[in-house]
């Protein structure tokens, strides 16, 4: 009767296609990447980025934006490399505490009707300050179990791929399938109607922020597992990366339109884009500019695929 390719499926197909094309290009440039070890090297640093992207996505699902993601992940990394190793109980308590702080931020932002951009900008200074207090100079060491987790070698597929798929699946269940996820996205879509149905928007926003804090904590821990130690500035770029990842994955800034699987794919794409550039060997002067160019190309690809898709649908 009606063509039933849902908008969600299209939203997902496009980032997936861009990732595939980029991956093909990388394999062509560097066939060595086409192996168990190669894939792991290409993608393992995408794991913390994917987690941070999911965290950012949860915040964006309620029409907010978190500019403190990078400093927060850095702070968590510092806690992981110090307390979580030396005094696991205190470390775990601190991490649980900061997840609570995230939830409280959601409450405050909602109650006082504050712009999340400014509050998170302020929090980015706070997290940075705490991180500097904790580790004035780079150092600390990853807890052994974290290190073991991030360097394990599962059969068939490398750790990076397995973990990425697991993250995507878990986030999909949570955000797209569960009642809580529906509620959180509902707040992004139309806060008033959620309120009119008798839900507490306050609780929904607090839950979204708390979950975001939780995923960001996981990102910090995973990062330390890969780098083995931390410093106060280790993940600053995660703020912009996570936002770019959500957008690349088909999410939008307002309206509660997000896609967890897309976000993970977006994070993988961004990581891969960097490698692609290394393999191209551009003059050092223009290497930074090439990062911009690749972002543009990937997004242009998205546009192109979008057009094709639309034409197909129109037929």
């Amino acid at each position, binding site marked *: 009767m009606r063509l039933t390719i849902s908008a969600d499926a299209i939203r997902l197909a496009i980032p997936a296609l861009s990732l595939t094309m980029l991956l093909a290009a990388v394999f062509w440039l560097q066939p060595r990447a086409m192996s168990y070890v190669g894939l792991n090297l290409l993608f393992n640093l995408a794991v913390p980025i994917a987690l941070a992207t999911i965290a950012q996505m949860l915040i964006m699902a309620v029409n907010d934006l978190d500019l403190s993601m990078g400093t927060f992940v850095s702070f968590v990394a510092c806690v992981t490399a110090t307390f979580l190793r030396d005094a696991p109980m205190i470390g775990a308590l601190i991490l649980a505490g900061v997840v609570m702080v995230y939830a409280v931020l959601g409450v405050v932002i909602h109650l006082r009707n504050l712009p999340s951009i400014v509050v998170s900008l302020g929090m980015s200074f706070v997290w940075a300050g705490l991180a500097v207090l904790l580790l004035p100079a780079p150092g600390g060491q990853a807890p052994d179990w974290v290190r073991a987790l991030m360097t394990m070698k599962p059969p068939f597929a490398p750790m990076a791929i397995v973990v990425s798929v697991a993250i995507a699946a878990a986030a999909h269940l949570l955000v797209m399938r569960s009642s809580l996820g529906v509620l959180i996205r509902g707040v992004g879509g139309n806060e008033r109607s959620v309120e009119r149905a008798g839900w507490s928007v306050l609780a929904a926003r607090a839950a979204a922020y708390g979950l975001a804090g939780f995923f960001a904590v996981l990102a910090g821990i995973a990062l330390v597992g890969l*780098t083995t130690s931390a410093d106060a*500035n280790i993940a600053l770029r995660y703020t912009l990366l996570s936002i770019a990842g959500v957008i690349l994955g088909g999410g939008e800034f307002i309206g509660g339109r997000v896609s967890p699987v897309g976000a993970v794919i977006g994070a993988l794409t961004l990581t891969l884009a960097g490698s692609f550039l290394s393999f191209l060997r551009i003059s050092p002067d223009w290497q930074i500019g090439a990062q911009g160019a690749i972002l543009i190309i990937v997004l242009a690809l998205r546009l192109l695929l979008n057009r094709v898709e639309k034409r197909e649908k129109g037929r």
Partner: protein
Amino acid sequence: DTSGKKIALSNNYAGNSWRQAMLTSWNKVTGEAVKSGVVAAADAFTTAENQATEQAAQIQNMILQGYDAIVLNAASPTALNGAVKEACDAGITVVSFDGIVTEPCAWRIAVDFKEMGRSQVEYLSKKLPQGGNLLEIRGLAGVFVDDEISAGIHEGVKQFPQFKIVGSVHGDWAQDVAQKAVAGILPSLPEIAGVVTQGGDGYGAAQAIAAAKRPMPVIVMGNREDELKWWKEQKDASGYETMSVSIAPGVSTLAFWVAQQILDGKEVKKDLVVPFLRIDQANLEENLANTQAGGVANVEYTQEDAIKVIEAAK
């Protein structure tokens, strides 16, 4: 014989004159080395942002590209250890310099940053035996080099208790940031006898102090050409005296030769030390003449220099 070997430079930042000089020296020296067939390739890579995570990804890509050695100026002494370990496990020689890494499998060409800080206070104690108030300009918070130099300075102050640090600001190793930070704290400070710095911030401090119409203290410089030029002008006008100290950007070329020697099968100790480059009242003119306008005082190294440094460490 290393004529078939490929070496990569992993650099995390290109946004200041020091790093640009470092890259220029690398290109100049390695370009000749490649041309004369000493090595097969010596490519330089810079990350878009000054971030350990991005550099770790860069190193992992170098592993995939099959380089034999990676010369590394690290964003963090520890946060790259995971990637460096993976490179070592893949049989790659890793030589770090300036920003060194703590991973035991890598080589380190270190500058004694602590001593660099301490020597500034020592110099001031000779110039100003009666002591006085000091303003400290630090680098970027949370970065290893900043912490080391600052620790050295504080050690120096302990050693020469006639000095007292009355103010401390972060200048992020940039003239304009330093200028802004100094201008902000200056109104609340008593008279200042000396300014201890970390490099790249002396000229900014001088401008801020001049703008506030305060007597010019002894500002320790950081080998930038604009700093040296200002110093020269002051020296000619009023006999102003100070000193200047920093690490030479050409140390990248030393790291290159050390990596080449290791690939060549030489026995090299894991920890090597290079002296920092110090300019005094006496050799100011000579150094100023050798420094490119707008650049940094520099020294480039040859294969012989590297062999000497390696021998000296044994």
